[in-house]
């Protein structure tokens, strides 16, 4: 029986590859866009005017505080009522990008806040403009602090991307649901789905750990 099921599963590999490709495409696109927007928002969150800071803060709270599924539904099904018609892929990218940007914004803001004020003052004292202070002095140092949690967040976002299957995109998790209709063995099917995510996520986790270690080495690692 298991043997039969396995055979049947192996036959589904084109579907699985398509799902994996969809997961990777969704994640890659939205992570790149989300990182860019997240950086921009993160800088505004620490340096912008008070109103902007509050608006960004409220938006981040709203996105972090509600289920991602609901966000996708609103974008895909409710936006058309306001005249914004989107196909499923675009809607998925927008929802994931928005989610990514909100989390990344917080990480970047924390990184910027961790740069010692002395650094900003030194830049200020030598007459560097706000843009150069950010670009040359603050961001490169904030990056060192932000990079490990950023990569860690990528892993979480890749896993969150599975929710977009609710609006009809056939990603890796969705393939699991489709296959389990024909091969009704939840354990086997979702173990394989899990392995698919592992293949994508584990290198990122290793990267995050590596970055963290480099940072600690630079700051002198603490031993107990």
């Amino acid at each position: 029986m298991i043997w039969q099921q396995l055979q049947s599963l192996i036959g589904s590999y084109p579907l699985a590859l398509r799902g994996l490709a969809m997961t990777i495409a969704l994640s890659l696109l939205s992570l790149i866009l989300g990182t860019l927007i997240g950086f921009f928002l993160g800088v505004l969150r620490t340096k912008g005017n008070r109103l902007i800071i509050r608006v960004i803060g409220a938006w981040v709270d709203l996105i972090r505080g509600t289920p991602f599924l609901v966000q996708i539904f609103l974008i895909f099904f409710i936006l058309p009522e306001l005249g914004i018609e989107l196909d499923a892929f675009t809607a998925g990218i927008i929802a994931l990008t928005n989610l990514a940007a909100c989390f990344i914004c917080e990480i970047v803001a924390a990184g910027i806040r961790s740069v010692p004020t002395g650094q900003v003052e030194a830049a200020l004292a030598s007459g560097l403009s706000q843009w150069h202070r950010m670009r040359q002095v603050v961001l490169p140092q904030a990056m060192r602090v932000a990079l490990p949690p950023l990569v860690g967040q990528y892993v979480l976002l890749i896993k969150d991307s599975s929710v977009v299957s609710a609006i009809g995109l056939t990603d890796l998790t969705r393939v699991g649901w489709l296959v389990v209709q024909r091969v009704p063995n939840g354990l086997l099917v979702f173990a394989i789905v899990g392995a698919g995510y592992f293949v994508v996520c584990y290198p990122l986790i290793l990267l995050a750990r590596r970055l963290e270690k480099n940072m600690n080495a630079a700051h002198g690692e603490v031993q107990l």
Partner: protein
Amino acid sequence: MLENFSFRTITEYLPLFGYGFAATLWLSIVSFAGALAVGITLCAMNLQRSQALKVPAKIYIDVIRATPLLAQLYFLYFGLPRLGVVLPELFIGILALSLNSGAYVAEIIRAGILSISRGQVEAGIASGMTYFQRMRLVVLPQAFRVTIPPLLGQAIVLVKDSALLSLISVSELTRAGQLLASDRFMPAEGFITTAACYLALYYGLKTLAASSERWLRLRPTGNLK
């Protein structure tokens, strides 16, 4: 969908949402307590010198972080019965959430402990404290303060993750919204009400995190030169 948004139907389903809210709340609390236990154990293993304890903890944490909760949940739900262990769904759900969040909690606590300066540990060594005295009297009380805000952040994640338990027939908040959507075909009403409930939980936890942070800042710790 929005122009016929029916608040009246929502009020009809309100008791169901109330029940779901309470269920999500208590099973999140229990799962988080479990996650703390799992996390502390894993972290203790991870900080040992012995590779026999360290390596399994590391592998566990990596595997949990690199795979989706859904896969872990099904792994327990369909896997345990094959080993002859049949447990109620609720129990399996709480177990899965605890085991999943525990891996993240372990990393948070580890970061907290490692953030304590070497000098603090040395001061303990120099005054003749044993390893456990140092941990208990010097390191952990300080690490505890550092970890409270990120732990509450993890609690927020856990509350939202608990929605997945509706898949293994645990009735909670998400389930209430789905019922409204499938009985009455009112998805907008169902999901927006669900989202509002989660948002309320989120703000509760966030307020707690903010006030704990303020409390921690009031109590002088001070980064010394």
